[in-house]
């Protein structure tokens, strides 16, 4: 089958690649086909960031910059975008970009192997913050570099470099020129997306028609997990159906009673939408993988993939999220927790896709927290995840929804713990009952992340944390712990 040509903009020029297999990664194309070896492979699974590149996309009239992991990104998915790699930043005269110069000045490279990835994350940060006149705080630098691992420096000089960038002479991208090129690409592209082994439809009707026509195609929605099936499990796909270019599914719609998040909205944007309504989720959002994964991965992908340790689902369950499943036959809506039927199994029909995630807006009196326990604070997978959403009326639990991850074969709703609370006065005793119910209703497994006993104990203890937080107890969660604040009188 003739493969569609991939076209993208790099160094101000149009790059055109033919006959690229649908499951070939962007990193393979860069290093093996284009002989651009500046971008490195550290892990091949999106966890170390050595392969970070920046994608530019025309969004709402402007150019949106996103640092992503090229090792698990399918090459075809960047069709119609602009690409920057570490080789593309220095000027023609060899003058370094501020992201690079700051790294040199601050001694941010030792062995240098992670450096190209850090430089590209810094470049993304530069375009998204420094170029817009926003300062880079240490906190921001830590957040945006959490998907890049360095084994040599201990990070301090790299964090310094992030803050040093704005002190250096400005460097700018000719965005108008890039946008013009992207526009030209989009014109050429309009018709061709429904052909070949890599299908990337631009509209929902096209997507649903293709889904029905090619039930065997591997659906991808950001590929941050499926990418590992390629690199680690060595799977090969004859046909790939990429939902991330479907215009309708890339929208976040804010209604009075709900936010509807399209299945192809990136995790970065989806969490922005959730945090806008519920600022207390900011840290939880930042702890979801690293930025390059959140920039590629989608909320719909996380939900549809249905990993028992996916972190968005316990939260969405607690929020009372509804899923909209769509096919050419029509749409249906169901609560998220009813979507899963077993380990990585769900109710999707062969011609169906997850289209929307509908999240209720907060109501007055809502008390919501989401907790994640992992070995490392950032960019790790939960041993246990617990999200609790509670509303009291006259001191009595009027509404409660509890989502849990890492404790069963699927993300689950803690129905027994909810029952232990619903209609009861919100007290320490009620908390104990809910904690006991949580411990008894799930039988977690022991694995490399934690033992079953630990998971069980902590599930209940997190309910205790929730109780303390509901009572206004400060400084009881290390996630937000600052010594200076804790010591303030």
């Amino acid at each position, binding site marked *: 089958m003739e493969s569609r040509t991939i076209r993208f903009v790099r160094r101000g020029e149009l790059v055109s690649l033919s006959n690229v297999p649908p499951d070939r990664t962007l990193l393979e194309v860069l290093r093996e086909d284009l002989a651009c*070896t500046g971008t*490195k*492979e*550290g*892990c091949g*699974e999106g*966890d*170390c960031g*050595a392969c970070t590149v920046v994608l530019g996309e025309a969004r709402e009239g402007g150019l949106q910059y996103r640092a992503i992991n090229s090792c698990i990104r399918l090459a075809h998915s960047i069709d119609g975008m602009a690409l920057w790699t570490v080789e593309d930043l*220095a000027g023609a005269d060899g003058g370094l970009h501020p992201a690079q110069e700051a790294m*040199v*000045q*601050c*001694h941010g*490279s*030792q*062995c*240098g*192997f*992670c*450096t*190209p990835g850090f430089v590209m994350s810094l470049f993304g940060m530069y375009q998204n913050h420094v170029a817009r006149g926003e300062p880079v705080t240490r906190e921001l630098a*830590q*957040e945006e*570099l*959490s998907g*890049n*691992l360095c*084994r*040599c*420096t*201990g990070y301090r*000089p790299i*964090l310094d470099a992030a803050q*040093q960038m704005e002190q250096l002479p400005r460097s700018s991208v000719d965005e108008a020129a890039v946008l013009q090129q992207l526009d030209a690409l989009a014109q050429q592209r309009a018709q061709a997306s429904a052909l070949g082994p890599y299908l990337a439809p631009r509209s929902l009707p096209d997507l649903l028609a293709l889904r029905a026509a090619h039930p065997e195609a591997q659906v991808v929605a950001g590929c941050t997990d499926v990418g590992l099936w390629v690199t*680690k499990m*060595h799977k090969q796909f004859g046909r790939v159906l990429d939902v991330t270019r479907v215009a309708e599914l890339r929208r976040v719609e804010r209604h009075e009673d709900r936010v509807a998040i399209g299945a192809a909205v990136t995790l970065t944007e989806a969490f922005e939408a959730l945090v806008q309504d519920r600022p207390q989720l900011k840290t939880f959002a930042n702890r979801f993988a690293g930025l390059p994964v959140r920039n590629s991965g989608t909320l719909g992908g996380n939900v549809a993939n249905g990993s028992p340790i996916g972190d968005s689902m316990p939260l969405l369950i607690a929020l009372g999220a509804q899923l909209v499943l769509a096919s050419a036959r029509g749409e249906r809506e169901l609560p998220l927790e009813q979507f899963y039927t077993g380990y990585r199994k769900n109710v999707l029909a062969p011609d169906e896709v997850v289209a929307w995630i509908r999240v209720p807006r907060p109501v007055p009196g809502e008390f919501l927290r989401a907790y994640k*326990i*992992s070995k*490392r*604070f*950032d960019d790790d997978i939960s*041993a246990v995840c617990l999200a609790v959403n509670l509303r009291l009326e006259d001191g009595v639990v009027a509404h409660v929804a509890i989502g849990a991850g890492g404790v069963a074969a699927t993300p689950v709703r803690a129905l027994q713990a909810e029952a232990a609370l619903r209609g009861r006065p919100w007290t320490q005793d009620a908390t104990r009952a809910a904690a006991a119910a949580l411990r008894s209703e799930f039988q977690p497994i022991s*694995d*490399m*992340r*934690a*033992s079953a006993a630990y998971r069980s104990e*902590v599930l209940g*203890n*997190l309910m*205790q*944390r929730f109780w*303390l937080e509901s009572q206004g107890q400060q400084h*009881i*969660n*290390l996630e937000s*712990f600052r010594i200076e604040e*804790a*010591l303030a009188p």
Partner: protein
Amino acid sequence: MNAPEKYLATSTPQPATGASHPHESARAQVAGAATYIDDIPEVKGTLHAAPILSDVAHGVLRGIDASAALAMEGVRGVVLAADIPGDPILATFVHDEPIFARDRVEFLGQVVGLVVAETVMQARRAARLVKLDIEALPAVVDVREAVKLQSFVLPPVTVRRGDPERGIAQAPHRITGSLDVGGQEHFYLEGQVAYALPLEQDQWWIYSSTQHPGEVQHWVAHALGLANHDVKVECRRMGGGFGGKETQAGHVAVWATLAARKFRRPVKLRLDRDDDFMVTGKRHPFAYDWEAGFDDSGRITGLKLMLAANCGFSADLSGPVADRAVFHVDNAYFLGDVEIVSYRCKTNVQSHTAFRGFGGPQGMIATEALLGDIARHLGKDPLDVRKANLYGLEERNVTHYEMAVEDNILDPLIARLEQDAHYRQRREEIARWNAASPVIQRGIALTPVKFGISFTATFFNQAGALVHVYTDGSVQVNHGGTEMGQGLHTKILQVVADELGVPFHKVRISATDTSKVPNASATAASSGTDLNGRAAQFAARQVRQRLAEYVAEKQNCRPEQVIFAHGQVSGPDAVMTWEQLVDDAWHSRVQLWSDGFYRTPKIHYDKHTLTGRPFYYFAYGAACTEVAIDTLTGENRVLKVDILHDVGTSINPAIDIGQIEGGFIQGMGWLTTEQLVWNDKGSLSTHAPSTYKIPATGDVPEHFRIALWPEPNPEDNVGGSKAVGEPPFMLAISVWEALRDAAAAARGDAQVRMDAPATAENVLKALRG
């Protein structure tokens, strides 16, 4: 920003040493232009290899069925033990490790052979299709079980001084304790890789990401049945090593070369990250049991300590690693009456190997744990108990291996850090805060490091270098050390630039290459700059001496009167540029290049009794770390770190601080988030960064301050400097001791058994246990 202004990169001052030059490759690294092995343009016809791994931890290998793999597109064939022309056993010191598993497999992940194909992915896919017929045998994974079974790769070693039994029996206080400390994956960002190219007349050019090109050369020659001179090994840089590419790179290079020999084609072998985890050795996990007696001040009067090192299936470097653990049980403390029993256990896991500290961290942590326990037993501040046990200057100054500690700065160094970090005030404040805090408990610890510098095997402490001055005055230096990010090449350029009185940019380094400087030792044991820096300095000095003599003859003065500085050469009569002099000298047939050779003085030791002076000097440091733990979940965070470290006179402060910070954070990872888990089948289930968590940006405390001790190395060492690669790693023991301090506060109880790493689960267990 945290960086002191003075450590920001500077231009090119003279003298070059003492300045914070950026890493010599920094500008190339940030532009993606620094070449690693997998970036070298491939020679036409290059094939790719992937390893076939045992899927059983221990068993009889009855057959290998590669038919499915051979039928795959692009596959050229397999390489098995039968394809080895030379000795099928690797040329390791103990000679106990087969190149490819033959009749038995001894760990899950052991390499049985290779699949060779046209592309990397073709080879990797096919390698999984090779079927191994293995009859499983009982496997030993746990080190304590290995001790029980007397399963050893090398015989146990006992070091004893005085009468520890009496010291314990007569002491007013006694405690016993046990501890298990996990291993650590190196997680060099660049995985293991080698690229083998056939040359004419059965000679070989091997690009290897290795800390020890000379050993790779020797191993490859041995496996191929060739002489060393038939093999040239080259390494421009590694993307991280940390000890993990000291011996482990050799396997990969041997495998690649065997494939290249069989198929008469260049072959590249780059391990996938998960395979790298499964195949290569890691830091040795250790288990400890101790019994100690001590007086009212907490001073140890007798200690009996058992250390069991989990060595994996073969000896590799386990002997010297376990020796170094024995040598560092004392850390900064005088152990008068002591018995240390060291077991080198054989288990059915990867063969554990060198890793920054090389057993030193595993030796020190036991005594630091003991001192923390003693302090809590007596209700004393652990820092006071540590101080009570420090080595003295005139007495109590001889180690348990009979080496006098002559350069002891522990007392003033600790005192200064204690003051600068406000240790006492903070301890009081933390105690008050903890008393009022329902869930979070904080802890603090100040721990010292004394680390012996030199390879314990005395003969390794030698190095060579070449300095070439070209007719245009540009200089090239080559030496036997390798660059893994530690800044060795940068420091050597600084040393050579100053020796010749030329600006830094006049000097270039070239790739480490066994055909330039032969028989070089591994770049390991923190010794890279000490050994190779001196060798390069001597080489440059000889060139300078010849030039000085040439000028002296012309200007009728003594050579010592000729000054080389700032790119100029001045005698009593005339000043000329360096370039002018070089051009003149060349026309007058003066030799403009030289070798240099260095061997460390004073050192000796008896490997049977483990006594002598194994170390030229000690490097010192101390860290004060504050942490917090969550008593509901065991989660923990490092809040503040203050470090005072001794690098002598720094050749490059920015690089030294980089080593201190990087070493500390790596040590913190070892003791907190980095957990290796083998399941009951002996399979390593944490084999990728998704499951094995090294520290990330968010784990670094904002308050992370490093100060350098202001005195030069009292021993005659290059530039008055001290080695810095490994010692700071062990400063991170302060993190773990602070966590135990916090746990003790939470428990309100003296006994805290907290196995390392202190994951949330292990901390919660320490609170409940």
